[in-house]
């Protein structure tokens, strides 16, 4: 081989536990998906879908028939050419798991391969988010895989990692919980456009990318300082200054959109079955306090009162007074009006996730301040994820509030499941609001951007009005790397093409 193999040693933000990006929504698996797989469309820095595997595409005048033609030279890692049939199967599998995928499938009449390279999609009605859906940047990303894998039950994992992406997965070297190795896919033909978010040419500039997961932040930081790794994907914000002050290390924020803190009420159980109580709580949730406690350094957070990420097209101020300018006093007043009867609020605190643990602590304090009773219950994230699915009363294992965050790219528009107003299908917490749901379902059918904007504003207004959730502000996670690493792509998702080690 060449004189020196170029290796990029990465500390990923999480351990890659499973490798099927359709089966799981874990961000680390999504990132892994981007290494191994390719997508038909991909989102660029303007949040616009751009063709990636697709060469040309067209849409009929009635907006019902979409035709996509694949690029030349697309090959699976096993050498077989990528066919339209593969892509049809892949889209079908994705459509069974992903929220936006399901929405798209609902309006779909048929999806078929006209020939080896042509995919034809027929819709039942015009739908505004076709490309936004299949060019989705975050989980679940509609990655393309060979038909034989794409036919796997979507609730079962695929057994092998054959994609057409810029890297090959080195399965023998995979040590779950510790190490993942990707090798450069020599056969990959990048597009000619410059990279922009997920779109553009995926030019691989190293021979090998190694993800070595570190369960301990301090050790991870020390490893980077000691030049034992090149790239630290998500150092704790507080470690950033030490890293930045170490010679040879660059610290910067790579994701311009950031993450949105989210406090979710359970709308089914008292006291949060009362909109006034929810709004009283929201009033007390001063973003600065959350961000300061959970994030710490001001350079890594900013307040954002829009439910759609600030700086993205649908950003709005509609109905945001409750989170923006209210306060503890206002909260007290609202609570007094609500007739709150002293029912204790069960806060689920995931102790293994520091940011969420901190959010929980702040919420507890805020709620106490406005006069609520709080029952803080510590647990790990796994317990939380299964408990939050329970609609039962608190005494039977139910809950009242938990915290999470969404990466901005996941909540760009009202289609995000987080904003659902239909308790039957909606996300944990199960808010119920017909107006909200009407606006949401209308959104993909919107004729143009202006119309979309109106609907999105409506959605936001309703979300705040019904006290869907607490909006805890935006925060940004820095990346840290040795200064010989060059060519990072600014994006809400971590990509490893275009990066070189000098």
């Amino acid at each position: 081989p060449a004189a020196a193999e170029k290796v990029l040693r990465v500390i990923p933000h999480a351990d890659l536990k499973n490798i099927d990006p359709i089966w799981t929504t874990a961000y680390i698996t999504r990132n892994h998906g981007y290494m191994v797989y390719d997508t038909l469309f991909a989102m660029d820095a303007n949040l616009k879908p751009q063709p990636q595997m697709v060469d040309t595409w067209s849409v009929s005048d009635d907006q019902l028939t979409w035709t996509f033609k694949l690029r030349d030279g697309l090959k699976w890692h096993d050498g077989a050419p990528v066919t339209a049939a593969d892509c049809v199967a892949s889209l079908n599998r994705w459509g069974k798991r992903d929220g936006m995928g399901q929405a798209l499938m609902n309006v779909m009449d048929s999806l078929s391969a006209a020939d080896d390279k042509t995919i034809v999609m027929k819709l039942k009605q015009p739908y505004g988010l076709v490309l936004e859906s299949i060019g989705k940047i975050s989980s679940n990303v509609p990655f393309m895989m060979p038909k034989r894998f794409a036919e796997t039950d979507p609730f079962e994992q695929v057994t092998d990692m054959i994609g057409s992406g810029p890297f090959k997965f080195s399965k023998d070297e995979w040590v779950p919980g510790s190490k993942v190795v990707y090798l450069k896919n020599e056969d990959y033909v990048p597009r000619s456009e410059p990279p922009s978010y997920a779109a553009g040419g995926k030019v691989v500039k190293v021979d090998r990318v190694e993800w070595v997961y570190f369960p301990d932040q301090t050790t991870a930081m020390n490893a980077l300082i000691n030049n034992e790794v090149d790239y630290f994907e998500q150092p704790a914000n507080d470690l950033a200054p030490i890293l930045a002050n170490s010679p040879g290390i660059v610290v910067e924020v790579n994701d311009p959109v950031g993450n949105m803190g989210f406090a979710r009420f359970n709308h089914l159980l008292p006291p949060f079955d009362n909109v006034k109580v929810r709004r009283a709580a929201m009033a007390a949730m001063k973003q600065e306090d959350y961000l300061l406690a959970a994030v710490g350094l001001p350079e890594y957070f900013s307040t954002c009162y829009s439910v759609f990420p600030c700086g993205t097209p649908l950003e709005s101020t509609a109905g945001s007074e409750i989170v923006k300018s209210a306060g503890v006093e206002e909260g007290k007043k609202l609570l007094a009006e609500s007739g709150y009867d002293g029912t204790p609020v069960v806060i689920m605190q995931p102790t293994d996730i520091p940011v969420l643990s901190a959010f929980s602590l702040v919420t507890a304090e805020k709620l106490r301040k406005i006069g609520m009773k709080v029952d803080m219950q510590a647990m790990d994230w796994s317990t939380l994820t299964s408990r939050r699915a329970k609609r039962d009363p608190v005494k039977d294992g139910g809950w009242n509030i938990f915290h999470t965050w969404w990466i901005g790219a996941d909540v760009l528009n009202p289609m995000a499941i987080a904003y659902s107003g239909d308790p039957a299908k909606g996300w944990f917490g199960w808010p119920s609001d017909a107006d909200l749901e009407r606006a949401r379902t209308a959104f993909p059918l919107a004729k143009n951007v202006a119309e979309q904007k109106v609907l999105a504003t409506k959605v936001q207004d309703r979300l705040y009005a019904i006290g869907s959730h607490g909006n805890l502000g935006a925060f940004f996670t820095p990346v840290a790397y040795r200064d010989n690493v060059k060519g990072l792509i600014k994006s809400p998702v971590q990509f490893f093409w275009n990066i070189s080690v000098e």
Partner: protein
Amino acid sequence: MFSFIAKRIVATIPVMGVVALFVFLMLRLSPGDPASVIAGDYATAADIERIREQLGLSDPIVVQFGNWIWQLMRADLGISIFSNLPVTTLIAQRLEPTLMLSLTTLTFSVLVAVPLGALAAWKAGTWIDRAVMIFAVAGFSLPVFVLGYALIYEFSLALQWLPVQGYKSPFDGLLPFLRHIILPTVTLSVIFIALFARITRASVLEVLEEDYIRTARAKGQTERKVLLGHALRNAAVPIVTVIGLGIALLIGGVVVTESVYNIPGLGRLVVDAILKRDYPIIQGLILMFSFVYILVNLMIDIVYTLIDPRIRY
């Protein structure tokens, strides 16, 4: 002897049965399950139910236990829910670092602790004795991770002598292996040195009271040889026993040390699995650890026969 070993191995079955039942019930009767973790943030309750079914978690507990035992009988530990790899593969991948760390730790601790303990016993009541014992008690009092961080800070960052983290196989070169394993070994050893030094001191002290020590002295034997030739060997049985019991402790210590030094070993595998509810891994590993523990103690019983001619099975 062989029939003894055979019988002892048979005797492990009920013990392993207890372990299996205990672990199984502990996992199944507790809140939280892998389905919801897998389902992730975007899932709805229906999705989770779907996954539960897929994983066989909706079956009655008895059926699940039966299936698992049947699997075990075929020497199959099952498939990791998350990574979809056989648990045996996962264990095999991570066995070496843990094994090596355990071996270096045991070796190092024994090499340091036994002479230290014997010395303390020999010099019982002097300042040497006191110093050793104070060290021993102190060794029991320090949280492992604090010690780990402190050592990294000093030897890796400040002095730049040793790497911060990671593991290198000795089969790829002894020097890198040693450089990587030194700090974890020292960190993990402290508590064992304390433990072994104590027991060595105590049992040597006890042996020194024995009549045959007086006999050896009556023969005109030198103190050094009395200590090394007569006392230490006779003190070996309790020391070896404690080393055996130390295995259980070792596994606990390994979990923390592996995290601090980022060593891809079994300890981290099992903790990760617990936090993610990867049942097959948890079950398989705890069962394996227990089995190792029992096996080591069986080996120790056999070692007894080497040390002590009175012990025959």
